[in-house]
Protein backbone atom coordinates (compact mmCIF):
# COMPACT_ATOMS: atom_id res chain seq x y z
CA UNK A 1 0.00 0.00 0.00
CA UNK A 2 3.02 2.23 0.48
CA UNK A 3 3.78 1.78 -3.20
CA UNK A 4 0.36 3.14 -3.98
CA UNK A 5 0.82 5.95 -1.46
CA UNK A 6 4.07 6.85 -3.16
CA UNK A 7 2.38 6.95 -6.52
CA UNK A 8 -0.39 9.10 -5.15
CA UNK A 9 2.19 11.38 -3.58
CA UNK A 10 3.77 11.98 -6.96
CA UNK A 11 0.41 12.72 -8.50
CA UNK A 12 -0.57 14.90 -5.56
CA UNK A 13 2.58 17.03 -5.71
CA UNK A 14 1.79 17.89 -9.31
CA UNK A 15 -1.16 20.04 -8.28
CA UNK A 16 -0.04 23.63 -8.86
CA UNK A 17 -0.05 25.50 -5.58
CA UNK A 18 -0.73 28.92 -7.14
CA UNK A 19 -1.37 30.47 -10.52
CA UNK A 20 1.59 30.01 -12.77
CA UNK A 21 2.30 30.76 -16.43
CA UNK A 22 0.35 28.48 -18.75
CA UNK A 23 3.28 26.55 -20.14
CA UNK A 24 4.92 25.40 -16.89
CA UNK A 25 2.05 23.35 -15.43
CA UNK A 26 1.65 21.75 -18.84
CA UNK A 27 5.28 20.66 -18.83
CA UNK A 28 4.99 19.57 -15.22
CA UNK A 29 1.92 17.55 -16.05
CA UNK A 30 3.73 15.91 -18.93
CA UNK A 31 6.69 15.02 -16.69
CA UNK A 32 4.33 13.83 -14.02
CA UNK A 33 2.46 11.67 -16.48
CA UNK A 34 5.76 10.10 -17.58
CA UNK A 35 6.71 9.35 -13.99
CA UNK A 36 3.27 7.95 -13.33
CA UNK A 37 3.48 5.68 -16.38
CA UNK A 38 6.94 4.58 -15.29
CA UNK A 39 5.64 3.54 -11.91
CA UNK A 40 2.66 1.83 -13.50
CA UNK A 41 4.97 -0.32 -15.59
CA UNK A 42 7.88 -0.66 -13.18
CA UNK A 43 6.22 -1.12 -9.86
CA UNK A 44 8.95 -2.15 -7.38
CA UNK A 45 8.71 -5.92 -6.88
CA UNK A 46 7.58 -7.06 -3.43
CA UNK A 47 11.04 -8.57 -3.01
CA UNK A 48 12.77 -5.20 -3.43
CA UNK A 49 10.09 -3.68 -1.25
CA UNK A 50 10.48 -6.28 1.52
CA UNK A 51 14.27 -5.88 1.47
CA UNK A 52 13.95 -2.14 1.84
CA UNK A 53 11.61 -2.62 4.77
CA UNK A 54 13.82 -5.16 6.53
CA UNK A 55 16.80 -2.83 6.04
CA UNK A 56 14.81 0.03 7.50
CA UNK A 57 13.98 -2.14 10.49
CA UNK A 58 17.49 -3.30 11.32
CA UNK A 59 18.37 -0.61 13.86
CA UNK A 60 15.12 -0.94 15.75
CA UNK A 61 15.39 -4.74 15.84
CA UNK A 62 18.87 -4.46 17.31
CA UNK A 63 17.74 -1.92 19.87
CA UNK A 64 15.00 -4.23 21.08
CA UNK A 65 17.23 -7.18 21.94
CA UNK A 66 17.40 -6.23 25.60
CA UNK A 67 13.66 -6.01 26.03
CA UNK A 68 12.92 -9.17 24.01
CA UNK A 69 13.85 -11.53 26.83
CA UNK A 70 11.71 -9.55 29.23
CA UNK A 71 8.80 -9.74 26.78
CA UNK A 72 9.15 -13.50 26.64
CA UNK A 73 9.21 -13.88 30.41
CA UNK A 74 6.17 -11.63 30.76
CA UNK A 75 4.35 -13.54 28.00
CA UNK A 76 5.10 -16.99 29.41
CA UNK A 77 4.31 -15.99 33.00
CA UNK A 78 1.07 -14.28 32.03
CA UNK A 79 -0.08 -17.17 29.85
CA UNK A 80 0.59 -19.60 32.70
CA UNK A 81 -1.23 -17.34 35.12
CA UNK A 82 -4.19 -17.14 32.75
CA UNK A 83 -4.30 -20.92 32.48
CA UNK A 84 -4.16 -21.35 36.26
CA UNK A 85 -6.79 -18.69 36.87
CA UNK A 86 -9.23 -20.32 34.49
CA UNK A 87 -8.62 -23.69 36.10
CA UNK A 88 -9.30 -22.25 39.54
CA UNK A 89 -12.42 -20.75 38.01
CA UNK A 90 -13.42 -24.31 37.07
CA UNK A 91 -13.80 -25.25 40.69
CA UNK A 92 -15.68 -22.08 41.53
CA UNK A 93 -17.83 -22.05 38.40
CA UNK A 94 -18.21 -25.81 38.47
CA UNK A 95 -20.29 -25.51 41.61
CA UNK A 96 -22.30 -22.62 40.17
CA UNK A 97 -22.73 -24.46 36.88
CA UNK A 98 -23.96 -27.62 38.58
CA UNK A 99 -26.51 -25.59 40.50
CA UNK A 100 -27.56 -23.80 37.32
CA UNK A 101 -27.89 -27.14 35.51
CA UNK A 102 -30.33 -28.44 38.07
CA UNK A 103 -32.52 -25.41 37.48
CA UNK A 104 -32.33 -25.21 33.67
CA UNK A 105 -35.97 -25.93 32.91
CA UNK A 106 -37.19 -23.21 35.23
CA UNK A 107 -34.96 -20.55 33.69
CA UNK A 108 -34.91 -21.35 30.00
CA UNK A 109 -36.29 -18.40 28.06
CA UNK A 110 -38.49 -18.64 24.95
CA UNK A 111 -35.58 -17.97 22.57
CA UNK A 112 -33.46 -20.84 23.89
CA UNK A 113 -36.47 -23.15 23.87
CA UNK A 114 -37.23 -22.24 20.27
CA UNK A 115 -33.54 -22.60 19.30
CA UNK A 116 -33.24 -26.09 20.73
CA UNK A 117 -36.48 -27.16 19.04
CA UNK A 118 -35.41 -26.11 15.54
CA UNK A 119 -34.82 -28.82 12.95
CA UNK A 120 -31.15 -27.85 12.69
CA UNK A 121 -30.54 -28.29 16.41
CA UNK A 122 -32.29 -31.64 16.45
CA UNK A 123 -30.45 -32.81 13.35
CA UNK A 124 -27.06 -31.86 14.87
CA UNK A 125 -27.89 -33.84 17.99
CA UNK A 126 -29.42 -36.84 16.34
CA UNK A 127 -27.24 -37.27 13.26
CA UNK A 128 -25.04 -40.31 13.68
CA UNK A 129 -22.81 -39.38 10.73
CA UNK A 130 -19.62 -37.37 10.73
CA UNK A 131 -21.61 -34.40 9.35
CA UNK A 132 -23.48 -34.10 12.62
CA UNK A 133 -22.22 -33.04 16.02
CA UNK A 134 -18.79 -34.70 15.77
CA UNK A 135 -17.97 -33.17 12.39
CA UNK A 136 -19.00 -29.69 13.49
CA UNK A 137 -16.89 -30.14 16.62
CA UNK A 138 -13.94 -31.06 14.38
CA UNK A 139 -14.46 -27.93 12.25
CA UNK A 140 -14.55 -25.92 15.49
CA UNK A 141 -11.16 -27.41 16.43
CA UNK A 142 -9.73 -26.76 12.95
CA UNK A 143 -10.91 -23.15 13.08
CA UNK A 144 -9.37 -22.77 16.53
CA UNK A 145 -6.03 -24.07 15.26
CA UNK A 146 -6.17 -21.67 12.29
CA UNK A 147 -7.22 -18.58 14.23
CA UNK A 148 -4.96 -19.07 17.27
CA UNK A 149 -2.16 -20.59 15.16
CA UNK A 150 -2.09 -17.53 12.89
CA UNK A 151 -2.24 -15.25 15.96
CA UNK A 152 0.67 -17.13 17.52
CA UNK A 153 2.76 -16.60 14.37
CA UNK A 154 2.07 -12.85 14.49
CA UNK A 155 2.70 -12.68 18.25
CA UNK A 156 5.98 -14.63 18.02
CA UNK A 157 7.21 -12.24 15.34
CA UNK A 158 6.20 -9.22 17.43
CA UNK A 159 8.12 -10.62 20.41
CA UNK A 160 11.26 -10.87 18.29
CA UNK A 161 11.20 -14.45 16.92
CA UNK A 162 11.65 -15.08 13.18
CA UNK A 163 12.86 -11.50 12.70
CA UNK A 164 13.72 -12.17 9.05
CA UNK A 165 10.01 -12.01 8.29
CA UNK A 166 9.39 -8.33 7.64
CA UNK A 167 6.51 -6.90 9.65
CA UNK A 168 4.72 -5.89 6.45
CA UNK A 169 4.96 -9.51 5.23
CA UNK A 170 2.86 -10.55 8.25
CA UNK A 171 -0.33 -8.93 6.95
CA UNK A 172 -1.50 -11.93 4.84
CA UNK A 173 -1.34 -14.09 8.01
CA UNK A 174 -4.34 -12.19 9.36
CA UNK A 175 -6.40 -13.58 6.48
CA UNK A 176 -5.91 -17.10 7.85
CA UNK A 177 -6.87 -15.86 11.30
CA UNK A 178 -10.13 -14.36 9.99
CA UNK A 179 -10.99 -17.53 8.04
CA UNK A 180 -10.47 -19.55 11.22
CA UNK A 181 -12.53 -17.09 13.23
CA UNK A 182 -15.45 -17.12 10.78
CA UNK A 183 -15.33 -20.93 10.65
CA UNK A 184 -15.51 -20.99 14.45
CA UNK A 185 -18.26 -18.40 14.70
CA UNK A 186 -20.42 -20.52 12.36
CA UNK A 187 -19.57 -23.92 13.85
CA UNK A 188 -19.80 -22.45 17.36
CA UNK A 189 -23.28 -21.09 16.65
CA UNK A 190 -24.37 -24.55 15.48
CA UNK A 191 -22.87 -26.24 18.53
CA UNK A 192 -24.63 -23.67 20.73
CA UNK A 193 -27.96 -24.32 19.00
CA UNK A 194 -27.56 -28.03 19.68
CA UNK A 195 -27.15 -27.46 23.41
CA UNK A 196 -28.52 -23.96 23.99
CA UNK A 197 -30.19 -24.13 27.44
CA UNK A 198 -27.25 -25.83 29.16
CA UNK A 199 -24.58 -23.70 27.47
CA UNK A 200 -26.46 -20.49 28.26
CA UNK A 201 -26.72 -21.48 31.92
CA UNK A 202 -22.97 -22.06 32.20
CA UNK A 203 -21.13 -18.92 33.38
CA UNK A 204 -17.86 -20.30 31.99
CA UNK A 205 -19.40 -20.20 28.53
CA UNK A 206 -20.12 -16.47 28.86
CA UNK A 207 -16.59 -16.00 30.19
CA UNK A 208 -15.27 -17.79 27.10
CA UNK A 209 -17.29 -15.56 24.75
CA UNK A 210 -15.96 -12.42 26.45
CA UNK A 211 -12.38 -13.72 26.14
CA UNK A 212 -12.87 -14.44 22.43
CA UNK A 213 -14.30 -10.96 21.86
CA UNK A 214 -11.27 -9.41 23.59
CA UNK A 215 -8.85 -11.72 21.73
CA UNK A 216 -10.31 -10.83 18.34
CA UNK A 217 -10.33 -7.12 19.24
CA UNK A 218 -6.63 -7.31 20.16
CA UNK A 219 -5.80 -9.01 16.86
CA UNK A 220 -7.87 -6.47 14.91
CA UNK A 221 -5.94 -3.67 16.67
CA UNK A 222 -2.65 -5.29 15.68
CA UNK A 223 -3.79 -5.65 12.08
CA UNK A 224 -4.88 -2.01 11.94
CA UNK A 225 -1.62 -0.91 13.50
CA UNK A 226 0.40 -2.83 10.91
CA UNK A 227 -1.79 -1.64 8.03
CA UNK A 228 -1.36 1.96 9.13
CA UNK A 229 2.39 1.84 9.63
CA UNK A 230 2.96 -0.03 6.37
CA UNK A 231 6.64 0.69 6.06
CA UNK A 232 9.20 -0.30 8.68
CA UNK A 233 10.22 3.25 9.48
CA UNK A 234 6.76 4.24 10.68
CA UNK A 235 6.66 1.18 12.91
CA UNK A 236 9.39 2.25 15.30
CA UNK A 237 7.07 4.45 17.34
CA UNK A 238 4.41 1.78 17.84
CA UNK A 239 6.77 -1.08 18.70
CA UNK A 240 6.05 -1.06 22.42
CA UNK A 241 2.32 -1.01 21.79
CA UNK A 242 2.61 -3.96 19.39
CA UNK A 243 4.70 -5.95 21.89
CA UNK A 244 2.08 -5.34 24.57
CA UNK A 245 -0.71 -6.35 22.20
CA UNK A 246 1.20 -9.55 21.34
CA UNK A 247 1.56 -10.49 25.03
CA UNK A 248 -2.12 -9.66 25.65
CA UNK A 249 -3.12 -11.79 22.68
CA UNK A 250 -1.15 -14.82 23.95
CA UNK A 251 -2.68 -14.48 27.42
CA UNK A 252 -6.24 -14.04 26.14
CA UNK A 253 -6.03 -16.99 23.71
CA UNK A 254 -4.56 -19.21 26.44
CA UNK A 255 -7.41 -18.28 28.76
CA UNK A 256 -10.03 -18.63 26.00
CA UNK A 257 -8.83 -22.15 25.13
CA UNK A 258 -8.74 -23.14 28.79
CA UNK A 259 -12.26 -21.76 29.31
CA UNK A 260 -13.52 -23.50 26.17
CA UNK A 261 -12.08 -26.84 27.26
CA UNK A 262 -13.58 -26.43 30.72
CA UNK A 263 -17.04 -25.71 29.28
CA UNK A 264 -16.94 -29.26 27.92
CA UNK A 265 -16.06 -30.64 31.34
CA UNK A 266 -18.29 -28.64 33.68
CA UNK A 267 -21.61 -29.67 32.21
Amino acid at each position, binding site marked *: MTIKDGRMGIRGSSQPQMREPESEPAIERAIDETIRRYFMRHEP*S*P*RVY*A*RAISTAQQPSAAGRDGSTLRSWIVAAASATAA*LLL*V*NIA*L*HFFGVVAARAASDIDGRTGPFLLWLSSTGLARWINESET*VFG*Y*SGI*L*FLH*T*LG*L*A*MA*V*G*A*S*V*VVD*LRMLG*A*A*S*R*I*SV*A*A*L*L*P*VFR*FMWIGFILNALSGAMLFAADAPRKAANPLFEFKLVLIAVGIAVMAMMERSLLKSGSGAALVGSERRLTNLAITSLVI*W*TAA*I*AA*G*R*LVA*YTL
Partner: protein
Amino acid sequence: MHAFAIWLKGTDLSWLVTHHGWVWATCEALHFIGMSILFGCIGALDVRMLGWWKSPPVAGVNALVRWGVFGFLINLVTGAVFFIGEPLQYVDNPAFRFKMLFLVLAGWNVLLFYVTGVADRIESLEPDDDAPISAKVFAGTSLFLWVGVMFFGRMLPFLGNSF
Protein backbone atom coordinates in the same frame (compact mmCIF):
# COMPACT_ATOMS: atom_id res chain seq x y z
CA MET B 1 -0.72 -54.12 24.77
CA HIS B 2 -3.68 -54.87 27.00
CA ALA B 3 -1.46 -56.21 29.77
CA PHE B 4 0.60 -53.03 29.57
CA ALA B 5 -2.53 -50.87 29.68
CA ILE B 6 -3.87 -52.73 32.71
CA TRP B 7 -0.52 -52.44 34.48
CA LEU B 8 -0.36 -48.72 33.63
CA LYS B 9 -3.85 -48.18 34.99
CA GLY B 10 -2.74 -49.69 38.28
CA THR B 11 0.19 -47.31 38.78
CA ASP B 12 0.13 -44.42 41.24
CA LEU B 13 0.79 -41.97 38.41
CA SER B 14 -2.40 -43.05 36.65
CA TRP B 15 -4.35 -42.66 39.89
CA LEU B 16 -2.88 -39.16 40.31
CA VAL B 17 -4.09 -38.08 36.85
CA THR B 18 -7.64 -39.35 37.21
CA HIS B 19 -8.29 -38.43 40.83
CA HIS B 20 -7.47 -34.77 40.53
CA GLY B 21 -9.88 -33.08 38.14
CA TRP B 22 -7.57 -30.14 37.54
CA VAL B 23 -4.76 -32.33 36.12
CA TRP B 24 -6.93 -33.60 33.28
CA ALA B 25 -8.51 -30.19 32.65
CA THR B 26 -5.17 -28.36 32.63
CA CYS B 27 -3.64 -30.92 30.30
CA GLU B 28 -6.65 -30.64 27.98
CA ALA B 29 -6.17 -26.87 27.77
CA LEU B 30 -2.41 -27.30 27.23
CA HIS B 31 -3.04 -29.97 24.57
CA PHE B 32 -5.15 -27.50 22.56
CA ILE B 33 -2.67 -24.67 23.10
CA GLY B 34 0.18 -26.91 21.91
CA MET B 35 -1.96 -27.92 18.93
CA SER B 36 -2.47 -24.27 17.96
CA ILE B 37 1.25 -23.49 18.25
CA LEU B 38 2.17 -26.60 16.23
CA PHE B 39 -0.46 -26.02 13.55
CA GLY B 40 0.29 -22.29 13.31
CA CYS B 41 4.07 -22.58 13.01
CA ILE B 42 4.29 -25.71 10.83
CA GLY B 43 1.28 -24.57 8.80
CA ALA B 44 3.07 -21.23 8.23
CA LEU B 45 5.96 -23.05 6.49
CA ASP B 46 3.47 -25.23 4.59
CA VAL B 47 1.48 -22.28 3.22
CA ARG B 48 4.75 -20.47 2.38
CA MET B 49 5.84 -23.47 0.29
CA LEU B 50 2.40 -23.87 -1.27
CA GLY B 51 2.50 -20.22 -2.30
CA TRP B 52 -0.48 -19.01 -0.26
CA TRP B 53 1.77 -16.70 1.79
CA LYS B 54 4.66 -15.66 -0.40
CA SER B 55 5.66 -12.33 1.19
CA PRO B 56 8.35 -13.60 3.62
CA PRO B 57 11.66 -15.33 2.73
CA VAL B 58 11.61 -19.08 3.47
CA ALA B 59 14.55 -18.70 5.88
CA GLY B 60 12.40 -16.33 7.98
CA VAL B 61 9.52 -18.80 8.17
CA ASN B 62 11.98 -21.61 8.94
CA ALA B 63 12.74 -19.87 12.24
CA LEU B 64 9.15 -20.68 13.30
CA VAL B 65 9.68 -24.45 12.95
CA ARG B 66 11.40 -24.69 16.35
CA TRP B 67 8.26 -23.21 17.91
CA GLY B 68 6.22 -25.82 16.12
CA VAL B 69 8.47 -28.45 17.72
CA PHE B 70 7.85 -26.75 21.07
CA GLY B 71 4.08 -27.09 20.51
CA PHE B 72 4.57 -30.73 19.54
CA LEU B 73 6.52 -31.41 22.76
CA ILE B 74 3.72 -29.86 24.84
CA ASN B 75 1.30 -32.23 23.12
CA LEU B 76 3.57 -35.24 23.47
CA VAL B 77 3.77 -34.71 27.24
CA THR B 78 0.09 -33.88 27.79
CA GLY B 79 -0.95 -36.68 25.44
CA ALA B 80 1.17 -39.10 27.47
CA VAL B 81 -0.61 -37.85 30.61
CA PHE B 82 -4.00 -38.74 29.08
CA PHE B 83 -2.72 -42.16 28.08
CA ILE B 84 -1.28 -42.81 31.54
CA GLY B 85 -4.52 -41.67 33.15
CA GLU B 86 -6.94 -43.74 31.09
CA PRO B 87 -4.92 -46.22 28.97
CA LEU B 88 -7.86 -48.59 28.51
CA GLN B 89 -9.99 -46.06 26.69
CA TYR B 90 -7.30 -45.64 24.04
CA VAL B 91 -5.76 -49.04 23.28
CA ASP B 92 -8.86 -50.41 21.55
CA ASN B 93 -10.06 -47.11 20.12
CA PRO B 94 -9.94 -47.10 16.29
CA ALA B 95 -9.73 -43.28 16.25
CA PHE B 96 -6.64 -43.48 18.48
CA ARG B 97 -4.99 -45.97 16.12
CA PHE B 98 -5.67 -43.75 13.12
CA LYS B 99 -4.39 -40.73 15.02
CA MET B 100 -1.13 -42.55 15.81
CA LEU B 101 -0.86 -43.73 12.20
CA PHE B 102 -1.24 -40.17 10.89
CA LEU B 103 1.24 -38.96 13.52
CA VAL B 104 3.84 -41.50 12.37
CA LEU B 105 3.22 -40.59 8.73
CA ALA B 106 3.58 -36.88 9.57
CA GLY B 107 6.90 -37.62 11.28
CA TRP B 108 8.00 -39.68 8.28
CA ASN B 109 7.06 -36.74 6.01
CA VAL B 110 9.20 -34.36 8.10
CA LEU B 111 12.12 -36.82 8.01
CA LEU B 112 11.94 -37.20 4.21
CA PHE B 113 11.61 -33.43 3.81
CA TYR B 114 15.00 -32.92 5.47
CA VAL B 115 16.77 -36.10 4.32
CA THR B 116 15.98 -35.66 0.62
CA GLY B 117 17.49 -32.16 0.66
CA VAL B 118 14.26 -30.38 -0.32
CA ALA B 119 14.48 -28.35 2.89
CA ASP B 120 17.98 -27.16 1.95
CA ARG B 121 16.92 -26.34 -1.60
CA ILE B 122 14.19 -23.96 -0.52
CA GLU B 123 16.16 -22.36 2.33
CA SER B 124 17.42 -19.58 0.03
CA LEU B 125 14.03 -18.62 -1.45
CA GLU B 126 13.44 -14.87 -1.19
CA PRO B 127 10.08 -13.10 -0.86
CA ASP B 128 7.75 -13.84 -3.78
CA ASP B 129 9.85 -16.80 -5.01
CA ASP B 130 7.92 -19.91 -5.97
CA ALA B 131 8.84 -23.17 -4.24
CA PRO B 132 9.59 -26.22 -6.42
CA ILE B 133 6.86 -28.80 -6.89
CA SER B 134 8.63 -31.30 -4.61
CA ALA B 135 8.40 -28.83 -1.72
CA LYS B 136 4.73 -28.25 -2.51
CA VAL B 137 4.05 -31.99 -2.31
CA PHE B 138 5.72 -32.15 1.12
CA ALA B 139 3.75 -29.09 2.27
CA GLY B 140 0.41 -30.45 1.06
CA THR B 141 1.11 -33.84 2.64
CA SER B 142 2.06 -32.15 5.90
CA LEU B 143 -1.15 -30.10 6.05
CA PHE B 144 -3.27 -33.14 5.16
CA LEU B 145 -1.61 -35.33 7.81
CA TRP B 146 -1.78 -32.76 10.62
CA VAL B 147 -5.43 -32.03 9.89
CA GLY B 148 -5.92 -35.81 9.91
CA VAL B 149 -4.25 -36.07 13.33
CA MET B 150 -6.59 -33.34 14.53
CA PHE B 151 -9.62 -35.06 13.00
CA PHE B 152 -8.98 -38.44 14.60
CA GLY B 153 -8.07 -36.77 17.87
CA ARG B 154 -11.46 -35.07 17.83
CA MET B 155 -13.13 -38.38 16.90
CA LEU B 156 -11.72 -40.19 19.97
CA PRO B 157 -15.01 -39.92 21.91
CA PHE B 158 -17.22 -40.59 18.86
CA LEU B 159 -15.55 -43.53 17.09
CA GLY B 160 -14.40 -44.93 20.39
CA ASN B 161 -15.30 -44.48 24.01
CA SER B 162 -12.83 -41.91 25.33
CA PHE B 163 -13.68 -38.58 26.81
